[in-house]
């Protein structure tokens, strides 16, 4: 492969990366991969643009001739992530990832869930107007014990598990620190009428009373639903361990 051709191909790969990173930022598609880290994408864009300048600063004909196969493989590998960005339009993780990443059985009891015998004292059960308290699923998991008996509203994706007793489904989302690779599921069991109405991975908003239940020896959050409303997927599908408690959706 001549130096000229090699340099043209290298430039093409780098320019492709610049375009891809710019598109991810401008369209917001980066949120499916790195929900909070747009500065990182911006840094990558800036650095790659600098590399493009460096490449165009070199005369096309300069550089080493080299084996075409090695060059082709290397440049092909660098293009592979861009192919996947185009081939699989940015979408968040779903129930398949939930099944792979869940740890602990509190969301999939083999026996019907037991009701909490005596609800814990209710702190700020509802707002002043009797409105349910708005919580993310992360809040629900973390605060279930201290606010059991509270009327809440939360959102998440539907997961149906054959091991669940009739009239139950799982509501889940993912908590992400840096990128989708480190996403950890958070969720709660939901008791509702006709759970089969909602398809796997449907986004729903659930209003109901939060309880704590003991399942397979582990405590878990149980939401006894008053109503379940289908909703569109939120712009920010992922939660973060650094998010402040929700006040509204």
């Amino acid at each position: 492969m001549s130096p000229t051709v090699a340099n043209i191909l290298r430039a093409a790969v780098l320019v492709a990366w610049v375009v891809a990173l710019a598109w991810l930022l401008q369209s917001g598609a980066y949120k499916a991969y790195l929900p909070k880290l747009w500065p990182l994408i911006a840094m990558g864009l800036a650095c790659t643009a600098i590399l493009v300048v460096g490449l165009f600063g070199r005369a096309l004909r300069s550089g080493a001739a080299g084996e075409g196969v090695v060059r082709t493989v290397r440049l092909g590998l660098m293009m592979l992530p861009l192919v996947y960005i185009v081939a699989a339009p940015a979408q968040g993780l779903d129930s398949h990832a939930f099944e792979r990443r869940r740890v602990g059985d509190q969301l999939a009891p083999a026996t019907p869930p037991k009701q909490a015998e005596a609800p814990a004292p209710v702190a700020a059960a509802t707002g002043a107007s009797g409105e349910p308290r708005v919580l993310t699923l992360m809040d629900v998991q973390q605060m279930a014990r201290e606010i059991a008996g509270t009327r809440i509203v939360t959102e998440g994706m539907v997961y149906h598990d054959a091991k669940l007793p009739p009239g139950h489904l799982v509501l889940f989302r993912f908590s992400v620190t840096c990128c989708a690779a480190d996403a950890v599921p958070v969720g709660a069991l939901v008791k509702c009428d006709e759970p089969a109405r909602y398809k796997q991975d449907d986004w729903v908003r659930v209003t109901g009373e939060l309880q704590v239940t003991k399942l397979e020896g582990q405590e878990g959050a149980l939401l006894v639903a008053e109503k379940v409303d289908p909703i569109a997927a939120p712009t920010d599908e992922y939660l973060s361990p650094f998010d402040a408690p929700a006040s509204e959706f």
Partner: protein
Amino acid sequence: MSQTVTPSRTIPLPVQAGPAPALAASSRGSVWPLLGLVFLAAALALPLTSRDSAAFGTLSTTFVSIVLEAMPFIALGAILGGIIEVYVSRERVAALLPKRRVPAIFAAGLLGLLIPVCECAIIPVTRRLLGKGVPFSAAVAYLLAGPIVNPLVAASTAVAYAGDWLVVALRLGVGYAVAVCVAMVIDRLFPGTAALLDGRAPAGGHECCGAGSCSHDQAHQEPRPSRERLMRALDHAVDDFLYVGQFLVVGAFFAAVAQTLIERQALVELAEIPALAIGLMMGLAVLLNLCSEADAFVAASFRGVLPLAAQLGFLVLGPMLDLKLAAMYLGFVTKRAFGTMVLLMIVLVFAAMMAIQLTLGGTLP
């Protein structure tokens, strides 16, 4: 005025190869280009054949997210490496580290406290520092300890474990100790540049001068216009970015496959015995390819389910060794050196975790 540096154990300067391109010399008769083509073909076929499957969605999202998170750091590291190559002389680099090898190893292991970059950015910088005569053992100490012994990782670990500073101290302390031990053994077994591919400091597909390796120090000692020097620095940066980037892509892809196929709950059910739990979590760390600022939250999700020693095994080994790092290491060290490093890391981390299990024991909240 420059000083003559005389380390207590003299190492030969990296031997400058002849004019044959490094790429051609390393690939002639090698199966790696063919394997690369096969991998590329298989990876490109997946979107065509499995695009609508749920598993492909998980694979694609995970693969792209790992690459997008790491690539900016590799680009930044490549630019820094290019600047080091052109603007920083061997003598200046040699003056930064203690003259004797053992103190240099100990000091290099702490560099992450001053320069907290992720493991992906460390690789291209370290490769260039090796070319400047930094001992390989010191580079190993920095490579292994840098992604753990740094304030960002300490902070993220503290947050993930709700302020449990014992976990932070154990993670950083054990990480540092393992890194230094591995570096010391490597220093004994692979003196000089014996651990490096072709027995010389990485040129990494270097192409700016049309030769496999150029006498850069000689070339760059001569006064050159600043624009030309800057362009040469960026030349090196482009080479490093493309060279290291290919290994990142391969490692990230296999990590995404692992995340798509492995059920974590199944690991929990297998890990009844603490030693098995530690081994499984160490294996998971290698497969998941998480950055060291985020892996604490994944490890913390196993609290109450697996012993602390198993969680720590995940936290200590992961930043040192995962699929993408393994691929990148193989880009500039010999297979024998790589195998030795891997064996040492695994044995030392496992031994340390068993010691923690026996002393602290049980499942801590």
